[in-house]
């Protein structure tokens, strides 16, 4: 009986540790996804002159899992709710962010970028994208550093607190 109880405690605390650690692991990966999304947007604007609504549909098919949802949300807001692009963009961001491990700074960057999307000619759009890209890059390096520092830490803390509790209760 004791053995089963302590195993459950150990299992739970390790799981919590892993979950917390995942926050740190996913953040840089998701930021990287955003960067590649922005690069696709840039190519579509500069070479294809594809309008934003069409682009959102294309990207929701092309891109991998978490970020794909954002473009699906955006398409939904634009098509079904007939919102303006700016409000559709910020609404989608608000709904999308809690599903991810990303934090405030990159949200601000993406929001800021959304407010300029579609309002200028290709040349200026490119500049805005470049700006957002370099901001995101900085955030990504940040995120990687904290990943290095914290990911392992949280995982082992989870495991060790489990052991500690078991020792206390025995």
């Amino acid at each position, binding site marked *: 009986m004791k053995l089963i109880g302590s195993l459950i405690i150990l299992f739970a605390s390790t799981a919590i540790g892993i979950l917390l650690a995942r926050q740190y692991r996913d953040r840089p990966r998701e930021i990287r996804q955003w960067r590649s999304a922005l690069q696709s947007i840039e190519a579509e604007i500069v070479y294809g002159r*594809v*309008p934003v609504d069409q682009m959102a549909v294309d990207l929701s098919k092309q891109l991998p899992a978490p970020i794909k949802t954002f473009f699906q949300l955006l398409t939904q807001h634009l098509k079904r709710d007939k919102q*303006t692009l700016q409000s559709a963009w910020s609404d989608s961001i608000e709904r999308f962010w809690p599903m991810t491990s990303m934090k405030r700074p990159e949200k601000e960057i993406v929001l800021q970028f959304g407010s300029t999307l*579609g*309002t*200028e000619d*290709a040349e200026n759009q490119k500049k805005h994208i470049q700006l957002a890209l370099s901001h995101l890059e900085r955030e990504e390096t940040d995120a990687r550093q904290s990943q290095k520092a914290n990911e392992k830490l949280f995982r082992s803390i989870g495991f060790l607190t489990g052991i500690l509790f078991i020792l206390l209760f025995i």
Partner: protein
Amino acid sequence: MDQILPYLPESVQQILLHLPEKDQQMLEEIRCRTERPLELIVAGQKWVPTDHTTMPVFQKEQAKQLLQKIGNYSIYTLEEELKRGYVTIPGGHRIGLSGRVLTEQGRVLRLRDVTFFNIRLAKQKIGAALPLVPYLYNRQRWLNTLLIGAPQTGKTTMLRDIARLISEGIPERYISSRKTAIVDERSEIAGCVEGVPQNRLGMRTDVMDACPKAEGMMMMIRSMSPEVMVVDEIGGKDDTAALFEALNAGVTVMATAHGFTFEQLSHRPSIKPLIDAQLFDRYVILSRRHYSNKTGCRIIILDQLGRKMTATEGIWQ
């Protein structure tokens, strides 16, 4: 009308929806000027609200929104349009734009702050050109025709219907359909959106959209082997050369030109050689008449030497 409404701000929509049925049908232009009241042109005249309501003032923010909506929230797709100064939207309606222009070495780069909009409602008048057919079709072929008229006299409407008649043919008059090519520099005849004509133009029509006329005509002759070619608003030197080429290549040409009278036109240096060479078989002169409240159109047809064949007056609109 329904195609236009989603673009406009709420206040303008309300005015349009509450227009009397009759005026709604005759609505020609919706003019929005920043910080000025809305203006509607109905049957060629400024529309005055009957119940003394004031027209809503068009705000700066609304101008921005309107442009965004026209560009589908992607202004970068409008670069070419912002250079030309107008946009064609689904339905073939044209929105003229003006405002502050960016220049580079004295040439227009594009419009930057678009503050004035003129929405011209495209109205295709199916059958408008039917009365002309007996004069323009002879011995199994269409005759080279030049339509002459001042702006807003219905030249393009007429030309569009001629194009439709040619490519559809008129079975009840034993007129067979022809391969038709339209060089549509201003996207006015076909009203193309992404290369697909929005107007009814018959089954056998090819359209070269937004293409400079002179080059477009040559491209069409070389590549699409048209029997009849339709072009709008000829006038440049290059146009004249291309027209000579087309007419000598055995392609029938239907064209329009700005002008009030035949005499006035025959003095224009770029058009004179065409008239002198008698390349056109028919000239159709359009003018606008007002009959107590109704606008009509007067049509005069001249033969290749400029002699009057007939004058008919018809009321349409």
